[in-house]
């Protein structure tokens, strides 16, 4: 299932600076939504290591910035991209 270009742009605008703020080498690559419209996948890449961040699409829409940041940080730490606190 492909997101509309406008929706993709809006997600990108929200997430790209957040990722760059966490790690300047972490690049936003793509965002995908599955056919159930529940699972949002954000593809990012650091060096040659791609990362797939998993978000609940319905919650994402209304998710406060701080919670979104915390969710992403937790996942990047679990994947070893960011150091654990």
């Amino acid at each position, binding site marked *: *299932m*492909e*997101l509309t270009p406008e929706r993709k742009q809006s997600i990108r605008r929200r997430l790209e600076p957040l990722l760059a703020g966490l790690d300047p080498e972490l*690049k936003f*690559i*793509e965002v*995908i939504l*599955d*056919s159930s419209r529940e*699972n949002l*996948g954000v*593809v990012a*890449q650091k*060096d*040659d*290591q*791609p*990362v*797939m961040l*998993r978000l609940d699409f319905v919650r994402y829409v209304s998710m406060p910035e701080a919670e979104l940041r915390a969710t992403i940080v937790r996942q990047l730490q679990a*994947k070893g991209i960011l150091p654990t606190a």
Partner: protein
Amino acid sequence: MFRWLKQFLIGSPLDTASLHEQRLPKKSALAVLASDNLSSTAYATEEILLALTAGVAAGLMVPLYYAIPIGLGIGLLTLIVVISYGQTLHAYPTGGGAYTVAKENLGVTSALVAGASLLIDYVLTVAVSVTAGIAALTSAFPSLYSHRVALCLAGLAVVLLANLRGVRESAAVFIGPVYLFILSAYALVIVGLIRFGQGAVVPTPAAEGPAAVWNVALVFLVLRAFASGCAALTGIEAVATGVKVFQPPVSRNAALTLYLLAGMLGTLFLGVTVLAYLSGVTPRSDETVISQLGRAVFGPGPVYYVLQGATMLILILAANTSFTGFPRLASVMAQDRFLPRQLSNFGDRLVFSNGMALLSLVAAGLIIAFNASVHALIPLYMVGVFTAFTLSQAGMVVHWRRTRERGRGWRAAINAFGALATGVVLVVVAVVKFTHGAWLIIVAIPMLVLACRSIRRHYYDASRELSLADYEKPAEIRHTAVIPVPDAPNKMVLRAFEYARSISKDVLAVHVNVGDLDREELREKWQAWAPDVPLVVLDSPYRAIHRPLLRFIDELEGWRDDDLITVVIPESVGKRWWHHLMHNQTSLFLKAALFFKPKTIVTSIPYHLRK
């Protein structure tokens, strides 16, 4: 192309129903099963002499006439072993190799020790035989000596191909050289003894050794000579293992062949040993004892070259016995799940071709590792075979104790004596040859036993896991289809898209950007042909395609719960065989890497090129 080459080399496939037609009459079976045992007459005497003269450098002179009582001792041991194996054939008319006898009477561990010992011995037989055969050739033509490893590998390939053609065809190929060797070896012994009697063969001074003073070193040297000469016994068990190659009545035919074989072995081995002593021949690195005897008896004429040619052929063909024994034993062990199951499958020509290929590979490795040296390989040789002899005879003792057959008392006594005799020789061989390489086999046998047990444990665990006893129907399968794509769309890739859409609502295209392509330009190209499929463009700063792609698939596995990843790989199929060399290399590596991922399924979508 491959099919044509295969048919040319090994022939057309044989129908399973024609399996019984592959059985052999005694004279052909003798050629197949006796070559290993008879060939040892070409080097067993030399090994005795070599061991006896080994002490010269240390000032320990051993008279060479000691070779005769040593030879007689080995002859007696042969008699004991043959009678014992005759008993085995009587008790196991459908084939009673050491593995089977030990498994039924002594338990699994003993069976595995016997099986591992024999498998190792069969490999060594191939390596030693081919190497000794080429040594006969380089004795006659010394300029070939520096090419001996390559010649050995070529000889091994010939024996492998002949055996892959099937039992009947290999027997037809080998029957001539085997009987030529028997004739020429008897001619050497008989003519040699007559000519010596007539004074035509003059002994060299080496035949007259000083009187030896018995001490520990001398005893060790004599024991080592005896152990080396026991190489003559190798191959005897092949008849008991290969019973199934005989035409009915198999047990009787096998026993007759075994006794005939033992008679020929005894007379030829003792004849060559006596002749070597009388002629005063001593081992030399550049010429074999048989070659020296041939020159002394026949002169350097055509008869000598016939003898050398026949010796070379029998030595190379001795490997043939292992090509009968190893695959059959491996198939029995594979049926018991102690070896990979592929080893129990018949090939196109109703032979165990996988076992033959494995045997050849390991033997070739040994030939290369030991630089095609017979003397370096021989010490490795006998630990395995005497372990198998001993366990087989011990198993037979238990067998007779369990049976109610008439004459079981004296039959058990014969096997017990056989077990004792071969057990003593095993200890002698292991001790005197330990530092010369026997330790390698003493280490290798338990390692192989452990490997066999691990293989069986794996098969057991796998069958339990695959069992339907606790089967629960899984929930509906949900999967994400991933298609690796090049930098531009084409028919082959779009066909893969169509397929992916038919199996999943979630299709992703992934491109690994190894150059400096513009991401948006790339996306536009793909959007035109597949607007509904998201394209993920991964960067590859180190230009590797697989690494970012495989890591992305890893990441994708964690995206959705209970999700399977189906990687749909578009592939082009060329019309000619060599077209394959120019396509699909990336997908080949990708498939190999993805094979081991538990949540990933790989599907190839072939596009058949018309030109």
